[in-house]
């Protein structure tokens, strides 16, 4: 792994984002809209007679942390798509760039983008809904990192699928995370899910993060059990995603798709 080349790729995304107002806007628009809509809705629900105590904190906490996972996946996949859209993919892959360097750069850029987005969401949720994300305390760090890493894994698989099945499968970039959303118990406890779905849910790292977040907000503290499962599963997911991407990449080279995708 060569830091010089990773820096070059990070620099590329930095130029790309600082040169494009729509790309900067995209970092904030949907997360802020989500926050406002969900925040207002929960405020309304809290005023109803059947209110759940602390409901707004659970929902806004989940919303912000969900965005960490979603944005992390998006950063990886969209960076790859940017090269396809610019017909630059061939230039990048005929340069002496290793796959690990390519992904490390997208991970770095994703992390910076997420930190900026989360900072804005944290300020807005504190200003409008009196919700302090930092009330999660030090637990926020492992929760954040686990979601970030899971986003990388999902991003690698999504990117691999686009590589294998071409630009027509671009919708996967936006769609795949939402397949996970209902199962990973982002906005409700795992116990809410049907019995048969719960083991599947528990096999997803993010489930343990969201369960852990709800425990912390309920004042129970972050369970070591949740953290252990999240970290363990994330390690398996990351290795699995890397192997799966390598397989898709080799398939693409075998079928001559890398060159096709790079000039479409």
């Amino acid at each position: 792994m060569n830091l010089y080349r990773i820096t070059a790729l990070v620099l590329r995304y930095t130029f790309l984002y600082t040169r494009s107002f729509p790309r900067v806007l995209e970092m904030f628009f949907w997360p802020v809209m989500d926050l406002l809509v969900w925040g207002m809705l929960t405020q309304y629900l809290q005023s109803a007679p059947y209110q759940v105590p602390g409901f707004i904190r659970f929902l806004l906490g989940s919303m912000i942390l969900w965005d960490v996972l979603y944005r992390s996946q998006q950063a990886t996949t969209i960076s790859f798509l940017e090269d396809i859209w610019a017909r630059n993919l061939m230039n990048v892959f005929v340069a002496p760039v290793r796959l690990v360097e390519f992904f490390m750069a997208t991970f770095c850029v994703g992390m910076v983008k997420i930190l900026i987005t989360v900072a804005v969401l944290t300020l807005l949720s504190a200003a409008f809904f009196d919700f302090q994300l930092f009330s999660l305390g030090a637990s926020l760090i492992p929760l954040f990192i686990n979601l970030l890493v899971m986003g990388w894994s999902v991003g690698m698989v999504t990117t691999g699928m686009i590589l294998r099945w071409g630009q027509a499968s671009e919708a996967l970039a936006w769609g795949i995370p939402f397949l996970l959303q209902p199962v990973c118990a982002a906005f409700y406890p795992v116990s809410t899910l049907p019995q048969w779905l719960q083991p599947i849910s528990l096999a997803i790292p993010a489930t343990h993060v969201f369960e852990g977040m709800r425990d912390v907000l309920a004042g129970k503290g972050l369970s070591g059990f949740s953290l252990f499962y999240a970290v363990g599963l994330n390690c398996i997911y990351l290795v699995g995603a890397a192997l799966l991407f390598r397989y898709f990449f080799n398939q693409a080279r075998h079928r001559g798709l890398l060159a096709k995708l790079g000039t479409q």
Partner: protein
Amino acid sequence: MNRVAKSDLILRVTNLYKTFDNTIAVDGISFHLARGEVLGLLGANGAGKSTTLQILLGLTTPTSGQVHIFDRDLSRHRISILQHCNFASAYTGLPTNLKVWENLLIFAYLYQVPHPFKKIQSLLQLLQIEHLKNQVTGHLSSGESTRVHLAKALLNDPELLLLDEPTASLDPDIADKMRKFLRHIQQERGMSMIYTSHNMRDVEEVCDRVLFMHRGRILVSGTPAAITDHFQSASLEDAFIRVAREGDQFLSP
């Protein structure tokens, strides 16, 4: 890696074979490229030129056969080989909303070019596009864009330069200037080049030797003049048309 390969052969391709499902794209070809030589890959659409080029760049894996570049096996030393190669094509692009110098800087870093700013400046001067330095890449004309791509391809002073139809979208005047520039820089630096084009003038002016391909095989190899003679044609273009239309009769069984 030592920048000077031990052998005078920059590239050795042996029994290269590539199939896509049931289609044979490259059918057991072997060829070589000497240091400082310009080799043209010529043939109609579907002849196997692009697939061959993609294999040489490591973008496509061969079904069988071997590619050695700088005496190294491409399948095992792809990254170290690519460090000393570069590529330009009329069919690729650069991020359109970045300025020309930003795009070049990124690739200079990717190829670990020493003193990148100085190098970019000298290439912009050499290609007479210094005035485009701060232009947004997406606003360039085809001719300007081709020169920027060429600047990108020369950033690392490649020992092997692969060019895929570099004059495809250029008007005859700019294409002529580009050919002269390529020939000049190739001779000055002793660079080896592989060149694909459908423009026979390109091939005649730039290439020392041509591989005429048809249905994945090499029909004949030689200088552009020798190829013209081989097919008893008035020009290379006539030879090209003849092979495109009657090529099967020249294939050995």
